[in-house]
């Protein structure tokens, strides 16, 4: 009593489900639109669509960050090991760079609203 229409539905469903894997299992890349730059007591939001060079005062001295083509990086830091500079260009939501000696951190934000509601 299985009909031709059933077979068609089964085949279609099978290919649909199989094709969902390559479609949704690619790494998703959400590009950030804002960077939160914080140091000691100051905190500022930088829009990534405006290129520029920004300075912020830390414990040791001035950290300089650069925004260019929707990416951001630490350009110069008065710290000794320069981990923050080695983080390179940041552009995806959730990426961050921090300079512990100078107390400066950079965190990239996107437009995700909240990640869960608990009942």
């Amino acid at each position, binding site marked *: 009593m299985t009909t031709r*229409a059933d077979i068609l539905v089964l085949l279609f*469903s099978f290919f649909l489900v199989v094709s969902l894997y390559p479609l949704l299992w690619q790494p998703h890349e959400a590009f950030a639109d804002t960077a939160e730059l914080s140091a000691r007591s100051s905190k500022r939001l930088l829009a990534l669509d405006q290129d520029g060079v920004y300075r912020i005062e830390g414990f040791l001295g001035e950290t300089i960050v650069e925004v260019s083509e929707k990416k951001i990086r630490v350009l110069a830091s008065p710290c000794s090991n320069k981990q923050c500079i080695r983080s390179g260009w940041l552009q995806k939501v959730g990426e961050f760079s921090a300079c512990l000696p100078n107390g400066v951190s950079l965190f990239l934000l996107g437009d995700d609203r909240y990640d869960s509601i608990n009942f």
Partner: protein
Amino acid sequence: MLSVSVTREDRLIAGFASLAILVHLIEAAFPSPLPGVKPGLANIITLIVFFRYGLRMAVWVSLLRVLVASLLLGSFLSPTFALSLAGAVAVIGILSLISAFPSRFGLSPLGVAVLCALSHTSAQFLLAYWLLVPHPGLLGLYPIFMTFALIFGFISGVISQKVYRQLGAA
């Protein structure tokens, strides 16, 4: 004195709905390997009612089941209930679409069961993504849920087909 006239159809709806509620409750008692993955055997009853008595009664049976089972399980108006209702509404949508075509598109309970299972899961997933966990990471689970939906839809389809054949048309 108030008297309510009960038709034969009412009795059938009540009978099938209670059968579906029973299956739903038994199924709820079993632990699931993955939260949200359930065989959905209660839909077998909906399908058989759909094939034997048509869309109207299937809608009644399906909505009554969701309502009463949620009251019995204590999940009425909770997110679980919302998900359950979303699934039932999606299935009703598919059944309405199918019944709008002559001879139900030529589909047997098997094909309809698979379509119902996939749309049920999709609707629940959409609601969960929209309302509960709007995080892109959730989408990674969609293929897995759909795989289970296909497998369980196929199994309940085979069962529905066998039961329907045994019962014959009403």
